[in-house]
């Protein structure tokens, strides 16, 4: 590819400004034949032609001399903590070229995402371990071939966090979906850190179950505390994105929450070696059906949850929810 001179110059100056390029050419023994560029960025300014890379670039051990193909080593962090992208390719006549480009910015960006992803994966694994411990005497293979066989009744509380994206938003649908995903990623972290298990994300709602992982508080209270905390932190959750456009969109979301409680049947769905947990909860369809009634910036709870909360801790107001079929339901609501 041949680039017009202004473009080639622009690319050169862009790379020089952003990536601090430095280069070396070394022979098969690791002796430096020539070098240049911004070597001081990598603390290599003391190197001279004729020196060896044995100490200063010890990560080249075993790699050079190349066998005609090039190698790319992204984000190599040296003992001083500098991160660099390393490109190595053979010279036409003698030795190998080593090009160093700064990798610190790229590392910082990736680190944040990777850290959060790994943390969530570890939390999920710990939750699975806790669930397994609930079954001291797992059902036999014969028993578990019948999906209706469950081995434990547990008290759980289900938390439904629902957001209302602004109806008048001018953002593209995909951007809104991306903003919802961003918002829920942070909500999920909050739920997991408070020992909740995220059961489902459906459109603009996320459902979490409390009581499966051992906790100090009763599940209903833990779910209420988590719901309140998420509503209280709505603005900080919304501003968690590093993308200003997404963050602004998240801020326009209005979150509301609902908690229902009760006994649920928990069991093994299939036989070993592929056992998986299953939860049958009468509260689940109920709380999904109530999604449309969840009001922004408000926590609603059902009568069962209300009964299980300590007296005088929360100032919930009783009211009736009326449905189209003329039925009604007593709920308690609170605005943090």
């Amino acid at each position, binding site marked *: 590819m041949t680039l017009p001179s202004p473009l080639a110059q622009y690319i050169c100056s862009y790379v020089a400004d952003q990536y601090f390029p430095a280069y070396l050419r070394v022979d098969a023994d690791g002796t430096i034949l020539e070098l240049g560029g911004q070597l001081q960025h990598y603390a290599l300014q003391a190197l001279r032609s004729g020196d060896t890379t*044995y100490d200063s670039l*010890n*990560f080249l*051990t*075993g*790699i050079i001399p190349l066998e005609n193909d090039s*190698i*790319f*080593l*992204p*984000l*190599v*962090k*040296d*003992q001083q903590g500098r*991160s660099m992208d390393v490109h190595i390719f053979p010279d036409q006549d003698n030795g190998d070229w080593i090009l160093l480009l700064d*990798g610190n910015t790229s*590392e910082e960006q*990736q*680190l944040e995402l*990777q*850290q959060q*992803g*790994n*943390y969530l*994966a*570890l939390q999920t*694994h710990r939750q699975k*371990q806790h669930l397994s411990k609930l079954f001291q005497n797992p059902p036999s293979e014969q028993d578990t071939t019948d999906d209706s066989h469950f081995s434990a009744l547990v008290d759980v509380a289900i938390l439904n966090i629902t957001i209302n994206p602004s109806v008048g938003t001018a953002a593209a649908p995909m951007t809104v979906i991306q903003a919802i995903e961003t918002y829920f990623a942070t909500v999920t972290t909050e739920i997991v850190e408070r020992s909740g298990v995220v059961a489902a994300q459906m459109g603009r709602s996320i459902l979490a179950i409390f009581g499966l992982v051992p906790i100090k508080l009763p599940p209903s209270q833990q779910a209420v505390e988590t719901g309140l905390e998420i509503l209280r932190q709505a603005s900080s959750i919304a501003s968690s994105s590093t993308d200003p456009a997404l963050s602004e969109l998240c801020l326009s979301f209005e979150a509301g929450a609902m908690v229902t409680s009760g006994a649920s049947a928990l069991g093994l769905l299939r036989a070993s070696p592929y056992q998986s947990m299953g939860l049958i909860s009468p509260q689940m369809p109920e709380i999904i059906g109530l999604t449309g009634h969840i009001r922004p910036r408000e926590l609603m709870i059902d009568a069962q949850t209300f009964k299980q909360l300590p007296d005088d801790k929360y100032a919930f107001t009783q009211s009736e929810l009326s449905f189209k079929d003329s039925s009604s339901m007593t709920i308690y609501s609170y605005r943090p």
Partner: protein
Amino acid sequence: MLQKKICMVGAFATGKTSLVSRFVRGIYSDKYQTTVGVKIDKKTIQIQEQMVNLILWDIHGEDEFQKIRMSYVRGSSGYILVVDGTRSETLDKAISLQSEIKKEIGDVPIIMMLNKSDLTSEWELDDQTIEQLSQEKKWTVIKSSAKEGLGVEKCFNSLATQIISQ
């Protein structure tokens, strides 16, 4: 002085960085900090009257979103497969990684470290599985704890000895 490249590979959060930190600096931190890319470290040890520089490549853990680049393992004289004893799936990951690495660099000395032996009560791997694996694969399998320092020196020294003896 001899200089040999050794890679640490395995699933994420198995304790690769902690093991290197324990071996090179003698320190351990409870705080989990994921590795992006690869961290290079060096330690000089004595094997059979011979001083050897071990260049340690602490490669990021593999997960479903982040695969290990095989260019990282190029030129390794040996490598350590790190498994978290409290997560049995990390053993499957180690086995699949070994298969990929073998395709890239062939047969070189391997040691499997079963890390987090300080959390035995949470282990998902039993002694029978470990024994079976050791016999089938003919790997040296060493239980280790980066937290308590158990098995760390033994593992690196054993791998270095195998490398030098080749």
